[in-house]
């Protein structure tokens, strides 16, 4: 039995209110207006007043439009047919392919029992030295990429999507510029990775409510694949747009804002998405990398701030590079022990030297005289930035480690590096 209503009492932003009985919280409805059909979700019940957020937005909806309740909550189709496909935030195809209706699964399901989680133990290789060598990405980790607006974060995500050693990539686009969406599509097509990818893309011109659905829909699909034994990497760009969409709806619903207009449950909302990252013992896993642009380069802004408390470290993208100081993969200790015996020492040693380089740079800019040691450091810093930090560098971890030793040997004597003698004996390049 489907219930149809023809009288919309209130239209406010993207939220409409109708009088109806027997409606459940979270139920979906279909609204037929002059501009086509749209889904809407119940977000408030007050007696017989039912408020729904309309996915395609409130614009152009008439008080006389038809609202048909579907007696089910938001679902998405799940099958291998999803591979290589592109959908919008409501799960409709964006790529002219057929709509998928079979095997519907619920989105926004319950969280994983903490007692069933395991300590992460597998590294995901990306071919990017600043990640593999200095801040290894770990299966089931959740990491944001903190970035200002102008940084090449989408380029970085695209490279990770192409190179990461996983079974499946799910790309969630929240408020992507249309150009960026096309960029992702082309890049992955070129790189031949589209066939192992699924896109759920909300572009900046799409209705804002669909933006809210993107993380949930992406993660629900990811979860199913993971339970079927797949290693899934979920890439989201950009979570700040998602938070802003939440803010928009909250303000429309006259909720009391907490910090800079964001709703009080921002932390819980973000956490319930990020916490979907998990390693199912004996099955697959979900790893999440999500771009979080920092408005005004301010890490204390509510979105990056709350994100930092939820995630297991962060990558800072600045000046086109992954910054070695602010960036941290909190799980790297769990994996960089069994890669190669010089991994940890080289990682620490090179960063310490790079820190000295930064100090020298400061001294130089203040006009102090440069000593021999300073000159060495300056040379080292240059090499390090160009041959390892640069985002275009694309080499596997072992090569990156060798490269690291080469750079050191180019600039210093073994004693000057502060590395253990055992390691320098073994790895120092022979002239």
């Amino acid at each position: 039995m489907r219930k149809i209503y023809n009288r919309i009492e209130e239209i406010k932003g993207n939220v409409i209110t109708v009088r109806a009985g027997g409606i459940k919280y979270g139920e979906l409805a279909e609204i037929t207006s002059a501009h086509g059909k749209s889904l809407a979700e119940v977000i408030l019940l007050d007696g017989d007043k039912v408020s729904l957020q309309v996915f395609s937005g409130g614009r152009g909806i008439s008080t006389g439009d038809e609202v048909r309740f579907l007696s089910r909550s938001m679902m998405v189709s799940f099958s291998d047919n999803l591979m290589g496909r592109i959908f919008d935030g409501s799960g409709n195809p964006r790529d002219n392919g057929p709509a998928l209706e079979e095997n519907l699964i619920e989105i926004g399901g319950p969280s994983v029992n903490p007692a069933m989680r395991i300590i992460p133990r597998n590294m995901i290789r990306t071919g990017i030295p600043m990640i593999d060598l200095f801040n290894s990405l770990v299966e089931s980790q959740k990491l944001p990429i903190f970035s200002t607006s102008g940084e090449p974060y989408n380029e970085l995500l695209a490279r990770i999507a192409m190179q990461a050693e996983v079974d499946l990539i799910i790309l969630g686009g929240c408020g992507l510029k249309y150009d960026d969406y096309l960029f992702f599509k082309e890049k992955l097509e070129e790189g031949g990775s589209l066939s192992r990818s699924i896109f759920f893309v909300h572009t900046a011109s799409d209705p804002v409510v669909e933006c809210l659905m993107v993380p949930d829909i992406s993660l629900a699909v990811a979860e199913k694949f993971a339970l079927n034994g797949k290693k899934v990497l979920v890439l989201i760009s950009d979570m700040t747009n998602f938070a802003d969409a939440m803010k928009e709806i909250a303000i429309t619903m006259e909720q009391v804002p907490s910090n800079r207009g964001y709703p009080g449950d921002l932390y819980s909302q973000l956490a319930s998405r990020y916490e979907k990252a998990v390693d199912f013992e004996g099955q697959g896993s979900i790893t999440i990398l999500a771009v979080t642009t920092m408005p005004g380069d301010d890490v204390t802004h509510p979105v990056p701030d709350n994100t930092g408390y939820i995630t297991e470290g962060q990558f800072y993208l600045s000046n086109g590079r992954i910054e070695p100081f602010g960036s941290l993969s909190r799980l790297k200790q769990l994996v960089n022990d069994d890669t190669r015996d010089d991994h940890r020492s080289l990682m620490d040693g090179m960063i310490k030297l790079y820190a000295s380089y930064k100090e020298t740079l400061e001294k130089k800019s203040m006009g102090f005289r440069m000593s021999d040691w300073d000159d060495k450091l300056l040379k080292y810093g240059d090499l390090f930035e160009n041959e390892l930090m640069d985002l275009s560098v694309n080499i596997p971890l072992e090569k990156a480690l060798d490269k690291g030793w080469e750079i050191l040997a180019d600039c210093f004597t073994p004693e000057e590096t502060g590395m253990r003698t055992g390691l320098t004996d073994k790895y120092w390049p022979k002239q």
Partner: protein
Amino acid sequence: MATTGKVVGVNGNLVSVEFEGDVLLNEVAYVVLQEKRLKSEVIRIKGKIADMQVFEIIKGVGIGDKVEFTGNMLSVALGPGLLRQIFDGLQNPLPQLAEKCGFFLDRGVYLDSISSEKKWELTPRAKTGDTVRRGDTLGTVPEGIFEHKVMVPFNLYSTYKVKSIADKGEYTVKQQIAELEDEDGNVIPVSMVFEWPVKKAVDVYKERLKPVDPMVSQIRIIDTLFPVALGGTYCIPGPFGAGKTVLQQLTSRYADVDIVIIAACGERAGEVVETLREFPELTDPKTGKSLMERTVIICNTSSMPVAAREASVYTAVTIAEYYRQMGLNVLLLADSTSRWAQAMREMSGRLEEIPGEEAFPAYLESVIATFYERAGIVENMDGSIGSVTIGGTVSPAGGNFEEPVTQATLKVVGAFHGLSRERSDARRYPAIHPLDSWSKYAGSVNADKADFARNALFRGDEVSQMMKVVGEEGTSNEDFIQYLKGEFLDSVYLQQNAFDKVDASTSKERQKYVFDKLLLIIMSNLALSDKDEARSFFNQLRQKFLDWNGSAMDTEEFRKTEAELMDMVTNKSSEPMSDLIERFEKKFAE
């Protein structure tokens, strides 16, 4: 007859219910869906409408759904078998839940918090005819390394005669072990388990005492400079990545208490997993048994329903109070109280209450104060002394301590361990700021000595600030040595390597011993001619001291390193060692 009602409104996890009959504030009720019953708590009553927070995912609840009230406030079950357990915020055992439901937390599944099958070896302590009151011991059962007292339920408020008591033997927690007869002749059967409402402090004691004795955490900066007393309270605010959780994990491992209750409240699941998986493998140095034997974990991580998060800290503190009644020292670690406060804020927003600062409810301060006030050291009815110590982390937005939760917490706690971003960025762990933090409790080392160390740090910091302006060249040798001494003190004593077997925990005795030697070095007058010599001397000294920190006390290596260390000082000292020691003893004479 039980009260029932009907759902008339749903707003997020807040449900409005029209009810018939009487309803209690904080009463537990169930929203009945076709196949599931969702646990909820009444948080406001207005006329015939009760507003309830639902502890589960709310999807699918509709107008007209039936609601059943239970007549009881939100309670936890207290009895033997709580230790070693992992509960969610409502005392649902998570491993058992996993056995039943698999990977996910299915809603509406509630299991026994305490196994009703396991048998316990009861030794009766009370005799037929004894007069007993609530909290009196009826018998004991061994629970791991403790003797668990089976007490007269705290919710029996009059005086009773023991009418019958079970013989020594094995019983399950649900079996009757005694019959109590009150003054009017009513007979009340008693088992080993009873329930107590979580939001009411357990008040079965003779008197509350002043927290005096230090709780040794084996973390040097805490025990020496910012000590915590048994039965006291402390808070650890810090920005993300400053190491709050690591500090809590270290404390849960090494703190010298009987029982540790970990309330993981709205934080990452991954961190709890580390504790979950590692604790059973680790041995408690005090008992030689697994650390799990003394641990209860209450785990309501960030993606679990928010209302249950609000309840979780109360569940934890109630269990802590229960073990306190047995004369044990209990440490409750809540990580993080900010998430708990945020849960309150979410509900307050849904209730459309007038918001206070940053939209936190106006009652935030009093709720936080009431929670921390449940810590304390008490003399129980039987004369035993038990305590609950509460340590809560705070996650201030943007790392700014001016925000409401940090400020409200600072008002009520006895010690403040503020973590700083600069220290954690410089990898100076634990990143407790030595100049900003404070404690109102007496520590295990002499207060004068601690003050002296604090002054040295303060002086060192002053010089370092000055040096930023005038450069090293413009600093006098004497000041420069002051600066080096401050840095030295910081790096060899305040910083502690959590990953080193020996250095990770420093016993009270060792702290006293090492601290004396350290102060000697700080007090010494060193003959160092220029800054380079001073710097290299202190570098060597630091290296030696760190080696010393890494060697176990009472070993040959320890004594040898100590001798070498003191030799280094003697060689550079401008006075004989004996004079220095005399000066030291005179200064700190009682």
